[in-house]
């Protein structure tokens, strides 16, 4: 194994690298007279031509794009308008920032609240509900349309209390915080209890 950058030479002194470029580019030999009479060069060129035939075969090899690509892309972009500031940023930062805003129209202008803000409000509030052990990962999702908001909360519940009662408390708290702090109308709160954990 030779180190990268090591200019390997053939027995006749010609650099292998030069022959590689000649074959890859389909160019005329830089030193035609020598090559025409040199068996080392000719053998190396033949070998490289075989390799480059493989490269071309690989280039012609049909690649089948998984159908999911188009589906997934279109699913994710609908509803996110292009933005001049989006390029260059990691997607993880861009997509949440492209989320939608709830709108409150007043007689003196419009108040827009990013749905991320609503997510944060609800998550903090729900985490404080007795019986909720944790509001997991992406625990809260919201969907906004104008001033109307749908909320979906996923929680881990403490073992013991009635789950429907717990869900109702979560529902009340999540709706209250968004209605009070953001002035929006909460049309529904779906609660998902992901797991129940025994408290010692």
């Amino acid at each position, binding site marked *: *194994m*030779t180190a*990268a*950058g090591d*200019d*390997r030479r053939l027995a006749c002194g010609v650099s*292998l*690298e030069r022959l*590689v*470029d000649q074959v*890859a580019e389909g160019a005329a030999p830089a030193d035609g007279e020598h090559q025409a009479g040199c068996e080392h060069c000719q053998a190396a060129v033949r*070998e*490289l031509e075989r*390799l480059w035939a*493989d*490269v*071309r*075969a*690989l*280039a012609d*090899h*049909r*690649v*089948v*794009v*998984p159908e*999911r*690509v*188009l589906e*997934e*892309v*279109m699913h*994710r*972009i*609908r509803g*996110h*308008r*292009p*933005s*001049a500031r*989006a*390029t*260059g940023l990691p*997607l993880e930062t*861009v*997509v949440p920032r*492209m989320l939608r805003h709830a709108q409150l129209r007043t007689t003196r202008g419009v108040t827009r609240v990013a749905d991320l803000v609503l997510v944060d409000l609800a998550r903090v509030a729900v985490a404080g509900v007795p019986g909720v052990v944790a509001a997991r990962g992406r625990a809260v999702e919201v969907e906004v349309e104008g001033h109307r908001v749908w909320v979906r909360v996923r929680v881990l519940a403490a073992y013991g209390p009635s789950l429907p009662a717990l869900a109702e408390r979560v529902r009340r708290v999540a709706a209250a915080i968004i209605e009070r702090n953001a002035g929006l109308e909460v049309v529904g709160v779906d609660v998902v209890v992901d797991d129940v954990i025994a408290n010692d």
Partner: protein
Amino acid sequence: MWLTACGAVIVIVDDAHLVRAAQAGDADAFEVLVRRHQERVFRVALRMLGDPVEAQDASQDALIQAWLGLPGFGGRSAFSTWLYRIVVNRCLNLLAARRPACELLEVSLAAVGEPAEEAEMRERLAALVAAILALPGEQRSALVLRELEGLSYEEIATVLGVSVAAVKARLHRARAELARRVRA
């Protein structure tokens, strides 16, 4: 525009028109662009990353990034060149974030055609793919764009954001390294 046998009208709209519509927020226009270009995006990602699942994710992310970044596309280069730039950068970032141990990837090429000669051919291509995947990212991107995608030096320079001289240098090193690995 063509009239087909059953009377349907097919209108072929060029990329530039679709790009303008997509820039104005027309997701359907973008869908046509995705259908047109997804194969090259996926192919480059697959050759750069070696793993179909990773290539699928990278392709999806690149296409979404393209949609989000459309207003920044001024149309100075072809849409395809711009798309190459996004997907190649995405792959280079992924490669940079990869731990060295992940470099050993399982290489597979689907069998097509005659099984007899194809088996040997497939083995040679698998060795070639492995050699390409062993190249450093910078060299790999230059080689993939030139030898597999057939881009010109100028186009590669635009995609990689470097000079034509730098492209030639990378390509030279990549080819030499490839020849060495396959001969070894």
